[in-house]
């Protein structure tokens, strides 16, 4: 029988089963169930839990622990993630694999505590200084949180890159049936030839560093990062096409909003409007190819991008589709969430 789990708790359990053995974090609504869960769960599997003095400390503990080869994660919500940006930039430069969770709340500033998607730019475009990216997932429900989180550490270590789960307050709080995967055997994980774990004695120094003071060396390193991102885009891009085969109006959204959009698709089809939905699962790398392919279809008349923000992902949609078809925007903000009926109203009024 499936279990009923809250998004936050399911993410935490999937992380543990995926090999996470250390958590560093600082409390903030609406993700507190993650550290709460980890505080007792990691103890059971011989792991480490630290409630740090701040988010700045949390992210630098991640730098240290993951730099030494541990599977460690942190979680926070928007203002807390903002505080981590310096550390994330360092981690990306030093190519340290780790997993981060952002259960987004309304911003800017302290904003509110209700669901929002206003951190899209921060998550996929950088957020900290310099040229870097993370792999960013936008899971739509609790089961997808589990499935993506379970393999997030493997993915992070494969490419030596942070993986971020970009959810929202709704995803953190919702309860749904889930099937949990088995516990990975952490003793069987591949050794890390680069990690500063003390096993490289006599075989040359291992250095984990983000300072490359010589321009040529830094440029070469950035070039290497670019090649890595291209490789990730080639291999790891994920998306879902939902009733898009004959769609004239293609809705697009990520995360929980995509599910509201799917209900809207059904309601629109009942009214005789051929709607479908295209959902990026990886927000970085963005599934540009399928957007272009969809835009090139004669049957497609327009895209409608739906977000809990003033419009952020829409910029990637416009870039990816080469603006071959109009891209309209429907959003709510401040912690308010649209209903399927709101989406239907928006589309039928436009039509």
């Amino acid at each position, binding site marked *: *029988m*499936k*279990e*009923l789990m809250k998004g936050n708790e399911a993410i935490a359990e999937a992380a543990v089963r995926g090999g996470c053995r250390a958590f560093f974090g600082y409390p903030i*609504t*609406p993700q507190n169930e993650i550290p709460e869960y980890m505080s007792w769960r990691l103890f059971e599997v011989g792991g480490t839990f630290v409630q740090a003095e701040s988010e700045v400390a949390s992210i630098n503990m991640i730098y240290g622990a993951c730099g030494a080869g541990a599977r460690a994660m942190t979680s926070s919500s928007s203002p807390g993630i903002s505080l981590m940006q310096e550390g994330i930039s360092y981690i990306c430069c030093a190519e340290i694999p780790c997993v981060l969770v952002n259960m987004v709340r309304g911003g800017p500033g302290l904003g509110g*505590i*209700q669901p929002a998607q206003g951190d899209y730019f921060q998550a996929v475009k950088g957020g900290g200084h310099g040229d870097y990216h993370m792999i960013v997932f936008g899971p739509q*429900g609790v089961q997808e949180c589990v499935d993506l989180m379970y393999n997030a550490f493997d993915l992070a270590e494969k490419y030596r890159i942070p993986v971020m789960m970009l959810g929202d*307050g*709704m995803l953190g*709080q*919702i*309860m*749904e*049936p889930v099937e949990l995967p088995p516990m990975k055997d952490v003793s069987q994980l591949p050794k890390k030839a680069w990690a500063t774990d003390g096993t490289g004695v006599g075989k040359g120094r291992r250095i984990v560093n983000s300072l490359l003071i010589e321009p040529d060396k830094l440029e070469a390193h950035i070039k290497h990062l670019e090649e890595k991102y291209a490789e990730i885009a080639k291999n790891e891009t994920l998306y879902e096409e939902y009733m898009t085969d004959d769609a004239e109006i293609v809705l697009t959204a990520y995360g*929980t909003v995509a*599910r*509201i959009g*799917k*209900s*809207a698709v*059904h309601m629109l089809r009942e009214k005789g409007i051929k709607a479908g939905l295209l959902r990026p699962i990886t927000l970085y790398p963005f599934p540009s190819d399928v957007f272009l392919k969809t835009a090139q279809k004669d049957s497609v008349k327009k895209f409608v991008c739906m977000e809990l923000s003033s419009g952020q992902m829409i910029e990637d949609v416009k870039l990816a589709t080469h603006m071959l078809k109009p891209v309209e925007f429907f959003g709510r903000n401040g912690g308010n*969430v*649209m*209903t*399927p*009926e*709101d989406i239907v109203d928006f589309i039928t009024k436009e039509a």
Partner: protein
Amino acid sequence: MENKIIIAGFGGQGVQSLGMFIAFASIHDGKEVTFLPSYGPEMRGGTSNCSVVVSDKPVASPIIAHPDILIAMNKPSLYKFESTVKPGGTIIVNSSLIDDKVTRTDVKVLYVDANRLAVEAGNARTANIVVLGAYTKLSGVFTPEVMKAVIEKKFAKKPKVIPANFAAFDLGYNS
């Protein structure tokens, strides 16, 4: 089958656990379900609500604009959500705390004297289970046996309270 329910009341009335009982029953029955609680700076005495969608198919939107069933445990909840109920839908009113009548004529209304029946069942804190009984009968989505199995499982660590909860469920189911 898709059953969309909004449950609302004061914090402390067992609004969230009432929703969770329905969610647990869904899993027990192999149905799909989403349980979305309101969250915020609410506390005991403040307002509290949750949205539950039970379905045979995977649930798309967990957000409900027009519920099939509204369970109003107190007056502010009835005022807030009465107008949203789908025409032909149902409102379950906790008449112990709500002396107003539902003004809409296009919905079914069931008045349940939940707090009084809870006392009758032997535990004043079981008003939400009384309403769970009424919901089970009215919606027909779950059998009373499934709900009782869930109640038994959820109170496995406090077996002393099970008889009163069963009694509360039966009083609600037969109300």
